[in-house]
């Protein structure tokens, strides 16, 4: 049923029949990137966790990822920033003007003082391209202006990430959403809710032939994570909107109902919950939970459950 629901848009209109299931997004089987958190260092003292920056301000970017391999290979991370994205249909290349290249999973970058041609209310963007290179040598392709990863057995992953540039102080800056806590509602019961931690102190029975209880994982965000902001409607009138957060649920153990939950405008925001079915073997189920506001704000946490 769930599969049918996901494929409904495709199936309905042409009355097409749909095929078998593909690997779900929630399932961690190999190296995965979650995102990069942008923190405005120039304002941190007075206004922490701002995810935007004005020209001349300095930001810190922290890459989040997981490598489930038993013996992870050493990872090199290269960041390339350019003042304006020159995206085309077939390339992710940056314009070399004002490009910056930085190394490491956590880097600091100063927003260049240049002219940005976009309406301040919609922000401008600094486009970043991140290369994560495992077991290889990092290089640079002069044609595409992108970093490369070469070497026998080398493997790489590419992520794009933009930094929102404030060209005018028209409204309060955006902040990163913050996941305050993650709660497990055992057997789906609110009266059996326990807060998860990274160590996996919470235990649940594994799925057996006698029974396979399902649990709810609930993500709770810090108050104020859903911020109000100003934008323009299609008639160019200034309007105020509330952020709709997007949550990601990922694990290597058991089965999740779906990878994402999204606030929607037309429904009151209820608890952010996902159904999890434990595996049939004893294991430590590690969960990666993300929150994004799609305005540059990002957060990720790791929690674990011991399956006995």
């Amino acid at each position, binding site marked *: 049923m769930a599969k049918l629901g996901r494929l*409904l848009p495709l199936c309905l209109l042409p009355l*097409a029949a749909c*095929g078998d299931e593909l690997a779900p997004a929630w399932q961690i089987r190999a190296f995965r990137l979650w995102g990069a958190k942008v923190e405005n260092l120039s304002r941190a003292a007075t206004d922490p966790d701002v995810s935007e920056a004005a020209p001349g301000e300095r930001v810190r970017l922290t890459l989040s990822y997981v490598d489930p391999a038993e013996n992870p290979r050493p990872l090199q991370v290269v960041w390339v920033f350019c003042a304006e994205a*020159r*995206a085309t249909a077939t390339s992710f290349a940056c314009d070399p003007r004002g490009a910056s290249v930085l190394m490491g999973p956590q880097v600091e970058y100063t927003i260049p003082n240049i002219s940005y041609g976009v309406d301040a209310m919609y922000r401008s963007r600094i486009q970043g391209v991140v290369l994560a290179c495992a077991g290889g040598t990092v290089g640079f392709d002069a044609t595409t202006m992108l970093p490369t990863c070469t070497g026998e057995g080398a493997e790489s992953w590419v992520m794009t990430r933009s930094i929102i540039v404030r060209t005018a102080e028209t409204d309060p800056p955006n902040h990163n959403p913050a996941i305050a806590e993650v709660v497990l509602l055992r057997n789906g019961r609110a009266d059996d809710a326990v807060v998860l931690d990274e160590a996996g102190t919470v235990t649940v029975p594994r799925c057996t032939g006698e029974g396979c209880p399902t649990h709810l994982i609930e993500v709770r965000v810090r108050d104020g994570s859903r911020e109000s902001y100003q934008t323009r409607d299609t008639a160019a009138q200034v309007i105020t909107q509330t952020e709709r957060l997007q949550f990601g649920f990922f694990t290597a153990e058991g089965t999740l109902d*779906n990878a994402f939950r999204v606030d929607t405008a037309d429904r009151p925001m209820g608890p952010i919950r996902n159904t999890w079915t434990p595996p049939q073997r004893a294991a430590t189920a590690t969960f990666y939970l993300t929150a994004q506001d*799609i305005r540059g704000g990002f957060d990720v946490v790791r929690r674990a459950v011991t399956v006995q």
Partner: protein
Amino acid sequence: MRTPRWLAALAPLVAWPGVALAQIAPTRPPEEAQTPAAQPETSPPRLTQFVEAEYPPEALAEGVEGSVLLELTLDAEGHVTQARVVQPLRDDFDRAALAAAQRFVFTPARRDGQNVPAVLRYRYRFSAEAARAAQRPAVRAVLRGVVRGSGDAPLAGATVTLRLGDQAPREAATDAQGRFRFDLDATGQGAVTVAAEGYAPYEATETLRDRDDVDVVYRPRAAAPAQPAQGQAPPEPTGDVAGEATVRARRPAREVTRQSLDFREILRMPGTGGDALRAVQNFPGVARSITGLLIVRGSTPQDTQIFADGTLIPIVYHFGGLSSVVSTELLDRIDFYPGNYSARYGRAQGGIVDVGLRSPRREGYRIVGNINLIDASLFVEGAITRNLSFAVSFRRSYVDAILGAVLSGIDAVTITSLPVYYDYQALLEWRPGRRDRFRLAFLGSDDSLALTFNRPSETAPRFSGNFSTGIGFHTAQLLWDHTFSADTTSRAVLSLGRNAINVGGGEAFGLDLAFWQYTARYELSHRLSRQAQLHVGLDIIGGPASITFNGIRPPTEGQTFNPAQAARVATTSTDALYRPGAYAELELTPAPGLRLIPSLRVDYARDADRSVAVQPRFSFRWEVARDWFIKGGVGVYSQPPQPQQSSGSPNVLQPGTTVGNPFLTMQRSVHYGLGLEHNFSRYVSASVEGFYKDLDAQIVAQNTIFGAGYLNAGAGRIYGAEILLRHRPSSRFFGWVAYTLSRSERRDSPALPYRIFQFDQTHILTVIGSFQLGRGWEIGARFRLVSGQPNTPVAGAVYNGDTGTYQQIPGAPLSQRNNPFHQLDVRIDKTWRWRRGSLNLYLEVLNVYNNSNPEGVQYNYNFTQSQVVTGIPIFPNLGLRVEY
């Protein structure tokens, strides 16, 4: 004065129609004429332009007729310089004859190679009967044929009754050769009955269009020898009762290729659900489309226009081609032109589908109900007064009820509004006299769907939430046909309506488009002579289009939809469209069997940077030998941009930019076509046609954030051949084999190499056959074998840290294809007839052998896995059609 003998022998040439030659070359010395050896090379004048004299009304009322002998003096150019009455009839006749004769034109008389003046006598005859005939309404169509009985012998004395739309029933008795004939001043669908002693009543339906000359053979079946005993059911009519109607001759279209369908073909065609417009998809030149789009000769769906009696309608099919938006019961004709069409059609560089609505019947009532698993419809027509008649049709789907029950247990989606479509047509026709026909029509259609996805998509989570789509049109149309004379007719069509499209896709996309469309079309046709007919027309479309849009600038054909990289656009604006056009077309028949049609069309589009497109066109059709025809054409076809492409409305997301490019001009295509047709027999014909289309100034989207939107930078070339082997409906069978071999290519800028067209299908084979088995049973099948659709492979994917999803990197555009499509559809009909109506039960099974036809490719969240999305599995549809 003597008249030379040779001159007397030539008199019939000069005298036609009614000239009495009296004298020529008065300057010639008499003695020369008396010396045969010295006789000069002389030729008499020949009448080349005859002018009909106005018959004096009083004389006509009194039935007076006769002739006036005139003497005409011609100059060396053949013009009449003087006319006088030599033998009067009556003053009014004399004046009329003189007035007409003074406008005659002759080829000059010649002597020794020089044009010379001449004097001749001309007898102008006034025939009251001919004058009355000329004042009658023009014969618009002819239905004639032969009724054959046992042993195929001509059946004399049979009564053939034709009920044609609003006309009173006409009767004709067959002569000794079994022949009958109807000269008709109206067209439409005609119900024919043949009654003959010793034969079962025979019924047939004939579709008669303007200028049709339809020759048929009817073969009623001998009546059952004995009546059934009391309590027993009467014997069922056999398939032969349907009889045999063979189209032998139809006046060719003004276009190189026009494909038309007989009513029985429409109703019984397998795989179409008895839907006339869906049947169009089986013609050569039409690519297969799962979404119901019309892809004609390698053109994008937007390049093909659909008309209902000259009024442009925005869609032709409900959701995915489930059924068409106009009831089959109301159709007089469906003309499909894949290319090289008449100058009366403009603003399209692909094909044309022109649907003609028929006249409601003018006596009695007729009701047709149709119900199947997808929708139900009701059609009613009848007479209000002798000159006023109506027809009403309504159809509604109930897919919503079925799907609602199926999907109610699925928690992934909340059905806000399940797919529903409806359409309606209402006609009111008034014939105040024999020369005029007025028709007021209301046409409408609406498709809507709304869903709420409770689980976000793994590839685009922000598309969760509400998804809705709706498209509809509601149009009022006024049509006026007027017959000025036997040679001059006109048609005027005015329409006003509202077309609306709205699409909502979560937060990411919203479109609300409303177009108040008015159209005005006027065509005047005048027969200049037996060899020439002129059509001139005006064709205007316009109106305000308001749009609210928030989303990604829509890509054009062949471009990969890349939401993360395409420019976002938001606007609320109103643009006014104004697109007038004018055309003139000349039909020439300089020799029997040869038709030459030069034409010119000029279009103006205010929304296309006020550009003007001059489009000369030419086509011909030549019967080179009996039943062998060569046909061909070449012409220019221009098409304005879509409103959103040329919109100069500001894009509020990027100050200083606009939604579209207001400097776009019209796209252009040059059509070339050459073909051969042969009628093997009354039933079987074949045609082969090659075509080439050269496209330039095609609109392409600049798929970048900083692009100007759209540019006239694209080009294309399309070439191929179409073969049609067709068996028209006989008493037992109809069917055809249609094969199209084509290649369609595009390039998005002059610097790029040509690539394959998004909907290119190299091979399209359609085989259709339907057999009448007798006793009301009919079975038909359709088999299709089509090349797979091109698709663009995925070269890789990049994780987008802004959205938390992967974004594909497309490979070479449209560089691979799905596997070929093949499918067999079967239809079984059982029909019961009784005196006042009929009942038809049918079962149509799509994809009988349940082939998993590939329709697309679906990827997992990071584009490392893929699977083929297949089309509909085996799908039976049971339906019932009742006619009373």
